Structures are given as structure tokens and as C-alpha cells.
């Protein structure tokens, strides 16, 4: 993955830049010791690494603004960073950049259950938001798999979702307002405690912009009352097509589960070896979860059972208590760990129309043979967000490149069948150079013109999201 050469003129001025940052920030907020900046050399896309020039860890919006202002004036690229759990290299630094991290922006500012929002500094973790809400009987809906570690700042940057977003939507559907620091250091408030605002939807534009437009330091998040209960069921099928058909029939029936997860045979094998979850041996397993009171849950399970029975499943297992529920989720939740035991893997993130799932799975199987690398599939079937895991051996020269080429073919396939390059991980550097598969040149040009409005000199997370060649002219402005 190519990244632009670091700007020598910035590297030469590194001491002055650090001094300028120290001049406006508390002493412990600026890190330039090479041993310490090394901790920020990559995010969860660990194949690519580069330590930044310095790291800034502010505690307030005003401090973020000061840091941004200094970097803006001195023309230093800024890479915003939440918890660094991005799988697409969204927080990958360059040698000539300053990382502004949200780790110390970790205060819950206001819990308002009457008006159904929580206001937080965006360095708080996703899970801790729901934890502080629990005694109030509320929760925050978006639940990415990394929720224990990932921050609200990162969730907003990537418009994160999770297993339960089939019913509750993703971050953009649960974000009411944001405090944003622009590259000039200017602080802008978007939205707030109201459910709607008029004017152009800048908040909607900001959400999912991967740190291209500004740094979000505080947010109003919509909160929801906790459901009375939730129970999963497991349905095994001996054909991926029939499993896919079951997903479509459930959705058409009027029952809206909170989650529909899918695992294919290679994934099931790995999970069984690793977690002994007791899953059936079959071609595909669905885990479907429904919510409500005990009677409501029983009714929904009966409806889904009737739908599944028509398709003659290998097994239909419903949870009757908390232990059953844990057992059903155990394999799914350990899937990524289980795959990791088999070797190195890259995890993709394409989305396809649900009706195209069987065809896509078949084609992925064919591509696997063509590229000579194994692949396993585990994903959110209700919304077609696939996560093919491509297995390879990082110690064997050339295998990473082969895995990446295979991955690119899968993502092209996703677009070809009417889907998109990324459902929840973001473009980052990983899918940057595939953007022209989904968008024509004028579509991309318009997006880059929008970035120009917020970041005229392209100092904010440059060389991400947009293909390097296409963005070259815009990035050049930073140098001039």
C-alpha cells in the first residue's frame, strides 16, 4: 500500500513543531520520544506501520483546537486517532504527521434520560457509554465488535455499526449533535439535544468521514430504553442458498430481529475446533436474536421456527435461558479468535444486496481456488455486510500480496452485484485505491471538493479514503 513520501521540510522543522505544540498545551499532552510514539505506529491494520512525528493527547476541546491551530498554521498533517481499532488503516500515521488522540477526552458530560440523550467527550469507549446508562434503564444502540476498546470518536469517524444495527441502525442514526474542531482550530457545534435540525445536514456528512473534515471532541448520542429481554436461536442449513433464502423470508414476514448472523462451513469448522460451541456440522448456520417480553419473544421465535421449518433446516435450536443464549453466541463471538489460530488472515468488509448472498458466496469460493488461498465467511446477514476472512502465511514472501489481490477481487465482486466496498470498517488506506470501482471520477471529484471546503490545504488525514492519484492535486495545495 503506497503512502506519499514524508515531506522533508516538515521533518526538518520537527523540533519547532513540537516546541510550538508545547507552547499551547500542558506539558504531558505532547509526546515526541521515539520510544513512546512507536505505540501509535499503526492501528488494527497491522501490516502497515509508521511512527508519527509527535502525538498530542488533549483533555479538552480547547486543547484540541490549539493543537489543530498550530498544525494548521505550520502546515503539518494531522491524523486523528480514537482507540486505534480501525481495520482499514484509518489511523495509520506518516512520519511527517502529528497524531491527535482522543484517549484523554474521556468524560461523560451529561446523562439526560428525560430527553433521551447522553453527552460525552468522544474519547469514551462505546461500551462504557452503555455501562453508565445501565442503572438508568437505557443503552446506546450501535455495538461494534470492538466496543470494549473502540471510542465514540472513532465510531463517528467510521459510522460504526454492529450485530444489532439491523433494528437500531448505525452511528449516523443515533448521533444527534457534535462539537467539531476544524483545521483552522475553529470550534463548530452541529445539532444538539433536538431530534432534528434544518439547514444542510453537516452532521450527516461528518459521520463516517474518516477524519477527513474535522475532529469531533464531544457528542450528543441518542439513547434507548433497554428491552425487557432478548433470546437468540440457531438454525443450521445444509446449503448456503437455503440459509440465504431463510434470511429473506424472515425479513419479509414482518418479524424484525435485532440480529441475523451467518457463518459458513469453513468458519464453523474453525470455531468448533477452537471454542467447542457445539454447533451442528452443516454448510451454514444462522444466529437470529429477537427481543421483548417473554411472551413476545416466544411468539417471534415460533414465527421464525415456522419459516425455517418450511426450508427443512438441519437443526433449529432455541435458547430457553441465559446459559443457552451464551452457548449460541459463544461460537460467533469467538470466530475471529478461532480464525486467528489457523494462521494470519485479512478481514474484508464488503456489503452486497441480501438476495445476492448465495451468488456472492459461490463466486468467493471460486476465487479462493483461483488465488490458492482459503477463505471463511462470518457476517451480518440481515444487511448483507460480509466479512470474508482470507487465510495466508505472513512469513511466506508474496502471500500478503496474494491475499490482498484476492481481497480486492472480492470487493470488486461486491460492487459488481450491486453492493459496496465497505459496510462498516471504512476505506482508510486499505480500500483507497479501489474507490474508482464504486465511484466514477466525477463522483469522487465532488467528494474531494467537499473535503476542500472543510480542509482547504488537505492537512487532515491526507492520503486516505481517496485514490492517491485522484487526490494528488488537492494534496499538493498543502505543500505550496
Amino acid at each position, binding site marked *: 500500500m503506497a503512502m506519499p513520501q514524508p515531506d522533508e521540510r516538515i521533518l526538518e522543522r520537527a523540533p519547532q513543531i513540537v516546541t510550538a505544540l508545547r507552547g499551547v498545551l500542558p506539558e504531558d499532552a505532547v509526546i515526541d520520544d521515539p520510544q513512546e510514539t512507536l505505540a501509535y505506529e499503526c492501528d488494527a491494520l497491522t501490516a502497515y506501520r509508521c511512527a508519527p512525528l509527535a502525538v498530542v493527547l488533549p483533555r479538552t476541546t480547547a486543547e484540541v483546537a490549539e493543537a489543530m491551530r498550530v498544525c494548521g498554521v505550520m502546515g503539518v498533517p494531522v491524523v486523528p486517532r480514537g482507540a486505534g481499532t480501525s481495520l482499514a488503516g484509518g489511523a495509520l500515521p506518516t512520519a511527517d504527521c502529528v497524531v491527535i488522540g482522543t484517549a484523554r477526552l474521556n468524560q461523560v458530560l451529561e446523562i439526560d434520560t428525560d430527553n433521551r440523550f447522553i453527552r460525552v467527550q468522544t474519547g469514551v469507549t462505546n461500551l462504557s457509554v452503555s455501562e453508565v446508562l445501565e442503572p438508568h434503564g437505557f443503552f446506546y444502540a450501535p455495538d461494534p465488535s470492538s466496543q470494549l476498546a473502540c471510542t465514540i470518536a472513532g465510531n463517528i469517524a467510521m459510522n460504526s455499526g454492529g450485530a444489532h444495527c439491523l433494528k437500531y441502525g448505525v452511528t449516523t*442514526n443515533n448521533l444527534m449533535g457534535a462539537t467539531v474542531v476544524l483545521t483552522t482550530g475553529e470550534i463548530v457545534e452541529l445539532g444538539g439535544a433536538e*431530534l432534528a435540525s434544518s*439547514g444542510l445536514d453537516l452532521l450527516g456528512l461528518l459521520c463516517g468521514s474518516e477524519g477527513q473534515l474535522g475532529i469531533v471532541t464531544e457528542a450528543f448520542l441518542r439513547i434507548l430504553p433497554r428491552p425487557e429481554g432478548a433470546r437468540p436461536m440457531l438454525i443450521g442449513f445444509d446449503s448456503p442458498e437455503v440459509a440465504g433464502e431463510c434470511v429473506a423470508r424472515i425479513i419479509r414476514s414482518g418479524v424484525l430481529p435485532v440480529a441475523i448472523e451467518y457463518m459458513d462451513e469453513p468458519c464453523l469448522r474453525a470455531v468448533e475446533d477452537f471454542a467447542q460451541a457445539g454447533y451442528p456440522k452443516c454448510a451454514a448456520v444462522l444466529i437470529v436474536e429477537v427481543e421483548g417480553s417473554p411472551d413476545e419473544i416466544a411468539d417471534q421465535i415460533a414465527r421464525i421456527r415456522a419459516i425455517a421449518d418450511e426450508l427443512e433446516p438441519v437443526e433449529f435450536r432455541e435458547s430457553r435461558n441465559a446459559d443457552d443464549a451464551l452457548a449460541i453466541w459463544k461460537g460467533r463471538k469467538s470466530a475471529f479468535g478461532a480464525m486467528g489460530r489457523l494462521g494470519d488472515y485479512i478481514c474484508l468488509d464488503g456489503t452486497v444486496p441480501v438476495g445476492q448472498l448465495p451468488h456472492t458466496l459461490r463466486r468467493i469460493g471460486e476465487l479462493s481456488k483461483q488465488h490458492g488461498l482459503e477463505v471463511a465467511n462470518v457476517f451480518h446477514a440481515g444487511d448483507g455486510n460480509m466479512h470474508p476472512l482470507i487465510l495466508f502465511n505472513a512469513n511466506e514472501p508474496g502471500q500478503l500480496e496474494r491475499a490482498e489481490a484476492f481481497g480486492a477481487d472480492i470487493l470488486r465482486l461486491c460492487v459488481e452485484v450491486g453492493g459496496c466496498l465497505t459496510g462498516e470498517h471504512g476505506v482508510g488506506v486499505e480500500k483507497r485505491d479501489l474507490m474508482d470501482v464504486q465511484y466514477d471520477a466525477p463522483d469522487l471529484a465532488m467528494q474531494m471538493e467537499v473535503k476542500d471546503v472543510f480542509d482547504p490545504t488537505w492537512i487532515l488525514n491526507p492520503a486516505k479514503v481517496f485514490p492517491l492519484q485522484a487526490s494528488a492535486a488537492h494534496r499538493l495545495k498543502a505543500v505550496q
Partner: protein
Amino acid sequence: MTSETISRTTNTPKTEAELAEIVAGHFAGCQPLRTMGGGTRVQADHIAGDTLTTRAMSGVVTYEPGEMTLIARAGTPLWEIEAMLVSEGQALAFEPPDLRGVLGSDGTPTIGGMVAANASGPRGIMAGACRDHLLGVRFVDGQGRVLKNGGRVMKNVTGLDLSKLLCGSFGTLGILTEVAMKTLPHAQARGTLAIRGVDDAEALRTFTTALATPFEISGAAFHDGTAWLRIEGLPPQLAYRQKRLQELFGAYEITFLDAEATVTLWRDLRDVAHFAGTDTPLWRVPVKPSDAPALTASLRALGGQTSLDWGGGLIWYCGPGEASAVRDIAPHAMLVRRGGVEGSAFPRQSAAVERLSQELRRKFDPAGILNPGLMGG
């Protein structure tokens, strides 16, 4: 030139290419265009230029009920879409309002107009607004370029979300030619609790209590002494939720409206039918719900009436108050029916937001020809 003397040409392109050509021509000549779908949502007589309507660009491109996705050309009548969804047991969950009664407009609401206005009704409190159900758009910008953003799948974080910008931009950034929407199962059962004899503050208390329960209240509105709570779901869910809510509000005088009465009531609340049929100015005011009782009292002091939607998060004010007086009380107020009130229908933004919005408009519409003067800038 006053609005009475403007003589307009109406452009009714049948294809995206034709539309792009018309816009490119106007861009070249710096001639303004008054853009619309069915012309049912905005009182736009004061906007300069020839009219351009998308209503001849009609038809559903794809509808996949099992995927909960629909793609339609911008001019497709909304009733046609809704009838098609109902036949598959689905709906646009955000309940787009029909403002013809309120605005005294005729014509046919279109799906493109709905997106351009981010038209969202009472169920927004649970399901979100139109923008939350928009998956992707095709549009023609102010230079006549055909562009697209988003797609037709439910999860998509590929690049910048320009679809959100287009949604609610009232045709000032581009003219929508095709929209992709998420559809959702239509509730199989529905009913309404009507809590009678309450004032704004008590209505708000019932909303706050009800919306803290897990019973998925899909409408919470108040007008003329009655607060309504709508519940929906599968038949057993409805029965259970009704029982629990009736227990919760046992101290009040409650009646339960069946499915048929519920449909009629919420259609009327959605369309603000209680303030239709007059020319008194009508304002739509999003607020923090707990502020609603005080704000409604202040607004009523200007003369006129109020009602509440979204559990108190939305005030409708129908009254003779001057724009400056209304906005002093409610800075987020948007003027829906002019009734002789001059000036921008849209609330004032902060300087920074206004600057960013203007610069964005210049990128999409460098010559400023799309609905000039309608929305800031």
C-alpha cells in the same frame, strides 16, 4: 419584477440526460431555476427563474422486499410507492407527511421531493427521519453534471456521505433523479392510547414516562387537551404493550383507539390537519422535549395555537406572531406556511455553519442557479 408578473417556462424533462442538458444550459447562461418534484411542499412563488420539475421522470427501478430496498426515479408519485410497499407488507417507516392540506398546494407529492425536503412524520421519534432511510442518490448538480453517491445496500461507509447533504437541501445542491430507500416491515397491529384532559406539561410527563419504557412507542403527540401514544407490532406485542401502558397511566382518563381509528388519527397528525385550511403562518419548531411546555406557553402568548409531536421534541405553532418574535422564543423555528411572513423560512445558523453551508453550495452550484434564495446563501 413581482411574483405576479414573472412569466415562467416549465421544464419537464423525461430523462436524466435531458435534465442534465437543461441545467447545463442554465449554468452556462447563469439563469436561475426553480426546481421541484410535484411542487407540494414549499411555497416557492418568490423563487426566481424557470421551473424545472422531475415529475415526468417516474417509475420504480427495483423493489426487493426481501432486501428491504427500493430504488425509484425522483418523480415517482409517493402514493404509487406506498401502494406497492403495502402490497408486500412494508412501508417507509418515517411516515412522510402530505402537506397539501396545510399549504393549499395541489399536484402530487413525489419521492424525490420527499427526500429533498427530508419529509418525516410522527414515527421519526422511533424510526428516525427520511435521511435515516436514504441509501443512495443520483442527482444533477448545478453545472449539469450527473453524479451519484451511496448505493442500494443498508450498510455503506464508502467515502463521504453526500446523500445526507442532498437530503433536506430542498434542491439547492442538486436535482435528485433517482433515490434508493430502505423499507421496513409494516406493523401488523396498531393501536393508540388517548389520554384526555391534560395540559402541555402533563402531556410531556406522560411522554417522558412512556418513552422510557421498552414498548417501542411509535408516536407521541398532543393537541387540544389530549395526548396520544401509538403502539405497533405483532398482535401479541400490541396486546401486551397496551396492557402495560394502561397500568402505567391508570390515574388518567384513557381510551384505546383501534387500528382503523389509529390510522386516521396519525395520518391527520402527520399532515398537521388540525392547522390546515387557513392562511395563518405555521411554524415547525424542533426543541429539547423538556423545554416544550415553557416554549408552547410563550408561543401561544403571541396569539395562536400549538400542538406537540415527537414526544414533545417538535412544536407546531400556528399563529400571527412576527418572524423575529417567534425566533426570539424558538431559534430553530422553520416557517412552513408563510401566511404573509417575509424573510427566510429557515432558521439562522451559527456563523461557522453558515459559512460552511455557503461554501458547500458553491461547490455543488457554482453559479448559484438552483433555487436561489430559498435556503440561506
